[in-house]
C-alpha cells in the first residue's frame, strides 16, 4: 500500500507512545501520532499541550494550532501554561515530541539560529516550549526532515539540550545531563524522512536503528553529517499497516500535514 514519508514518520512517532503514558504533544506530525496511538495500541494515553490543555481524546477536527477551539472543548483540563509546564517539570511527561532545524549526533537540537550568534545567517523562530520539553521529558522523540545540512556533527546553537558533548569533564550522554544539572531524560528517538535512530545513553551517540523502505544505509549515510553508527539489529523500518494509514487519513484526509 502506498504511503508518504510523513505518514511513515507519524507511524514511527506513534510507536514511541506506550499505553497509559502522558505525552507532551507538539503540533503537526506528533499531534497525528498521538491520535494514531490513541486509536491503536495506546488507548489510555493522555496528551499535554503547553497552551494549558490536557486531553484524553484527540480533537475530532484537524488542528492547525493547539489553541484551536476544538482542542479546548472536551478537554480534561484547560488552564495556564505554567500549570502544564509544571507537570512537565516535575517529571509527569513520559514522552515529549519536538522538531528542529538542526540536530547533531548527540541529539542536541537547534531551532534558534544558523551561523554566528551575533550575526546569524538565518534567524529561526526559537525554542517555544522545546527546550523545556528536552530538559524535563522522561524520553524525548525528535522528528525531522533528513538531509546533510540538518543532521550535523555539531549544531550552531543548542536550543534544546540532548546529550551534550564530550569534554575534559566527561563524556556526552546521561552523565553529561547530570553534570549540567538536568533532572532526567534525554533523546530516545530521532525520526527522520529516511530512518529511525535510537541513542546510546553511555556516550549519547545516535544509532541508526532502521532505515525506511526504499532507502539504504548508504543513502542514509550520504544525507547524514556524521559517520553513522548502526544498532546491532539495524533493519528496514516496518512500514505502516493498513489500519494505521486508515486512521491517519481519517484524521488528515487532505494531507495538510502528512502529504
Amino acid at each position, binding site marked *: 500500500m502506498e504511503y508518504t514519508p510523513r505518514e511513515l514518520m507519524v507511524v514511527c512517532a506513534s510507536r514511541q507512545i506506550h499505553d497509559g503514558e502522558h505525552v507532551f504533544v507538539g503540533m503537526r506530525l506528533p499531534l497525528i501520532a498521538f491520535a494514531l496511538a490513541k486509536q491503536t495500541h495506546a488507548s489510555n494515553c493522555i496528551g499535554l499541550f503547553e497552551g494549558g490543555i490536557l486531553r484524553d481524546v484527540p480533537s475530532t477536527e484537524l488542528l492547525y494550532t493547539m489553541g484551536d477551539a476544538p482542542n479546548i472543548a472536551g478537554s480534561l483540563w484547560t488552564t495556564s*501554561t505554567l500549570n502544564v509546564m509544571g507537570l512537565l*517539570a516535575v517529571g509527569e511527561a513520559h514522552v515529549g515530541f519536538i522538531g528542529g532545524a538542526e540536530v547533531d549526533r548527540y541529539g542536541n537540537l537547534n531551532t534558534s539560529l544558523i551561523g554566528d550568534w551575533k550575526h546569524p545567517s538565518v534567524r529561526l523562530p526559537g525554542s517555544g516550549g522545546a527546550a523545556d520539553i528536552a530538559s524535563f521529558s522522561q524520553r524525548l522523540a525528535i522528528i525531522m526532515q533528513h538531509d546533510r545540512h540538518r543532521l550535523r556533527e555539531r549544531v550552531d546553537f543548542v536550543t534544546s*539540550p540532548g546529550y551534550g558533548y564530550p569534554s575534559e569533564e566527561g563524556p556526552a550522554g546521561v552523565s553529561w545531563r547530570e553534570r549540567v544539572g*538536568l533532572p532526567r531524560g534525554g533523546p530516545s528517538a530521532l525520526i527522520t524522512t529516511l530512518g529511525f535512530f535510537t541513542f546510546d545513553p553511555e556516550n549519547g551517540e545516535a544509532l541508526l536503528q532502521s532505515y525506511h523502505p526504499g532507502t539504504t544505509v548508504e543513502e542514509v549515510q550520504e544525507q547524514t553529517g556524521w559517520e553513522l553508527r548502526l544498532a546491532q539489529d539495524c533493519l528496514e523500518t516496518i512500514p505502516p499497516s493498513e489500519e494505521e494509514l486508515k486512521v491517519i487519513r481519517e484524521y488528515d484526509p487532505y494531507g495538510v500535514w502528512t502529504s
Partner: protein
Amino acid sequence: MSKLTSMADAIAQYVRDGSSVAIGLALEPFIPFAASHEIIRQQRRNLTLIGPISDILFDQLIGAGCVDKIKAAWVGNVSEGLAHCYRRAIEQSIPHSLVTEEYSNFTIGLALLAGSLGVPYIPTRSLLGSDLPRQNPALYQQRSPLDALPLLLVPALQPDVTIIYVQRCDIDGNAHLWGSLGVCEEAMLAARNVILVAEEIVSREIILSDPNRVVGPSFKVRAVVHEPWGAHPSAVSGYYNRDHEFYHEYHTATRTTEGFKQWLDEWVINVPNRVAYVQKLGEERLLNLGVKKHLYAAPVDYGY
C-alpha cells in the same frame, strides 16, 4: 467610573515610545491584533515586546519598525513556519536592528509569575546545558544554596503594559476569559498597567455571577476597549475560529520587504479602525469563521 475607551485613546495613553508591552499571552488564541494594528498606526517606536510565542503579531510590529527588543520563546507563524520580518530585522537590520533575549515558554512564564508574586526571581532546572542562558543576559546560573545543584535563576519581568483579550467584560474591567489561558493571568498581575480588549461589553451582574471565571483584578485595568473580531485572525472560543488561510496569505505576501509594505498598507495603515477592518474581511469570511456548534458549560450555583 467607566474605563471604556477607543483603541486609539487606549494606545495613545498607555503604550508610549520605549514601553515594554506584554501581548499575545494565550499563545495561539486571543491575540489582540486590533491593539497591535493601532500601535503600528500610531507609529510607536523602541518597544520591548514580551510574550511566550507570537503568532505573526510580533512579526508585524517588527516589520513596521516599532520594536527594539524581543523577550520571547518563539517568534513565527504557527501554521506556516518562519516569520519573514523577524528574519529581515535580525539578518539584515531591515527596517532596523533588533535584540532578542530568548526564553522558553516555561521560563518566560516563570519570569512573569515572579513579577506577579513580588519575588526577585524563580529558580529552575530547565535550559541547563542549553545555549539560551549564555545568549540571554537576563538568565543567571548559580548552584543552589540548598543542595549545591546547578540552577537557572529567572528574574522577574514587570511589563509597563499588558494587553489581554477577553470574551466579555464590564465597563470597570471585570472580565471573563475561558479557553487555554497561557500566561495571561501572570502577565496581568505582573503588569504596571493593563488594557483589556473585549469581544463583548456586558453588565457587572453577568461578570460577578461567576467570580472564579474572572481573569484578574479590575483595579489594574486602565482601559477597556470594545472591539468585536478584535483577535482575528486568531481564535476566540465561543465566538470565532482561527483564520488559517489569513496566516497563509500573510506568510506568502510578506516574503519580501515590498510585499510586507503592501500587506501592511492594505490591512493596517489604510484601515482606520477595527470596524473598517471587519468590513474589509467581509460577510462571507466572518460567516465561515463563526461558531457552527454551541457548547455550553454546565451550570454552577454560588448560592447559600
